[in-house]
């Protein structure tokens, strides 16, 4: 390969990753700043974390966020996996065009539109705004992301395995749990994680659909940010980043271990 090109490649990767990571790194560093002024370094301190853990409003918001995230990610994974199955296994049914449009449109739909329309639905059916409405809203937009992730795994799936199971007398439900699910499980798990982080991060849709007593962490952070940048928010952001980073790293290690195991099993099978 031409050396000038590869030098160009390395430069663009280094600059690109610096651009992606520098702001986050700076944010984390300044969360340990002694000074109240965010941009002046005055020495290392963890006092903002202490004051954060004594801030009841933040703690309450964190609990709301985690509850909404766990419930909505679980339902979104079930619905999204069903949606992905419907899209890949049944290529002909009435209204398939509409179905596929409803799966893909929420991925790009501006959040203000989704939020407003869901709120107006909840008002129209007389549902009081609160944790339930936020959860329903989160399920709706994150199930589409799950559907796309699971679908990309399903299209490369060898269907003859399913057919063999069915020929041997397994019902479609047994076939799904014994044959299909174990194979697509990594995609389902990453779909769940994606849904969970989407729910954890969402500000706009939550703001529209939530009511009194259902303030999520991003809503709390947003209302603080509007008042100005403080090290306390940096600390809250750092904790959120740490949770996500640990989750992603654990997931990728688990994935790698599974691959290593599979390779070993295949080798063992080949030897026998």
């Amino acid at each position, binding site marked *: *390969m031409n050396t000038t*090109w*590869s030098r*160009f*490649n*390395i430069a*663009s*990767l280094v600059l*690109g*990753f610096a*651009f*992606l*990571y520098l*702001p*986050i790194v*700076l*944010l984390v560093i*300044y969360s340990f700043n002694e000074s109240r002024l965010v*941009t002046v370094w005055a020495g290392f301190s963890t006092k903002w974390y202490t004051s954060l853990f004594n801030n009841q409003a933040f703690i309450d918001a964190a609990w709301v966020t985690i509850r909404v995230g766990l419930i909505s990610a679980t339902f979104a994974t079930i*619905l999204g996996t*069903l949606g992905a199955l*419907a899209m890949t296994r*049944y290529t002909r*049914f009435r209204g398939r065009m509409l*179905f*596929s*449009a*409803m799966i*893909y*449109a929420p991925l*790009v*739909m*501006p*959040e*203000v*539109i989704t939020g*407003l*329309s*869901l709120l*107006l639905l909840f*008002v129209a059916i007389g549902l009081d705004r609160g944790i339930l409405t936020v959860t329903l*809203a989160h399920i*709706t937009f994150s*199930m589409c992301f799950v559907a796309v992730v699971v*679908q*990309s795994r399903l*299209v490369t799936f060898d269907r003859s395995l399913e057919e063999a199971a069915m020929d041997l*007398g397994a*019902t*479609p*439900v047994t076939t799904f749990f014994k044959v299909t699910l174990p194979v697509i499980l990594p995609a389902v798990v990453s779909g769940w994680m994606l849904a969970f982080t989407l729910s*954890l*991060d969402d*500000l706009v849709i939550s703001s529209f659909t939530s009511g009194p007593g259902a303030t999520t962490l991003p809503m709390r*952070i947003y209302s603080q*940010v509007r008042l100005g*940048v403080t090290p306390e928010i940096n600390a809250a952001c750092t904790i959120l*980043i740490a949770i996500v980073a640990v989750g*992603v790293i654990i997931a*990728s290690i688990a994935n790698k271990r599974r691959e290593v195991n599979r390779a070993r099993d295949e080798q063992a099978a080949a030897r026998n």
Partner: protein
Amino acid sequence: MQKLIASVTSRLVISIPYLWLLVFFLIPFIIVFKISLSEVAMAIPPYTPVVDITAGIKSVFNSISQFSWDNYVWLVEDPLYYKAYISSLVIAIVSTFLTLIIGYPIAYGMARAPATIRPTLLMLVILPFWTSFLIRVYAWIGILKPEGLLNQFLMWANVIDTPLNILNTNTAIFIGIVYSYLPFLVLPIYSALEKMDYSLVEAAEDLGCTPLMAFWKITFPLSMPGVIAGCFLVFIPATGEFVIPDLLGGSSTLMIGKTLWSEFFSNRDWPVSSAVAVILLLLLVVPIVLFQRSEAKAQESEK
């Protein structure tokens, strides 16, 4: 018997997510449209007429006869709104272009990297996407402020004497959009480039093409599906973006997502914000359909 079970299962698999999306995605749009034809009122809910199906057909028709296009006339007559639409579209187009210029070399560098480090690079691009959008936008406030880190650095390096005013300008919005949406553009381009047969480029170079020509004639056209999908993934949500113009833009920045938000939360005018949403959706319906088509096509070709 088995056939019956299979057909019942297939109906359930299709109808559960289908019904969910109908109720929570499609019907809400119809309600938005209906309310955009109403008038604002000091009541709960804050608009009139309220269509009450339980009150009988006659009262429904009576309410429908009170619907009016006044909110749309208002949107056309007040220059604030159409200026906001136009400036949202311009900001979204410019920032999509900037994201492409910055994102393409990254995707290209990843695709040409040794196969052993590619999964790591891929994870490094995805990781910021898992980090909260709000946090990533917030991080830029501290950097771009007049007394922020960028200005401190530039003044320390003697590049400038007086602080640059970047925060609360359109430049800050461009930076925010490029930064937040970069992974959305890098990933589809990377997956298009990774599948590409590089021997085509080598053949072209053997036949006398300069590397730049070979890139322009072969690599770029072959990555086009990824470029198109990526551009839609940036352009459509960026047009209705609220958080970035609100936190990084100034008071003079007009973006329609911000207008909708303030109509709803500050003015409590639900009918006008619904009309704003309907027009925004009409502007975006063509790109959304094109995006959905290209995704469905990509999905088909993988089978």
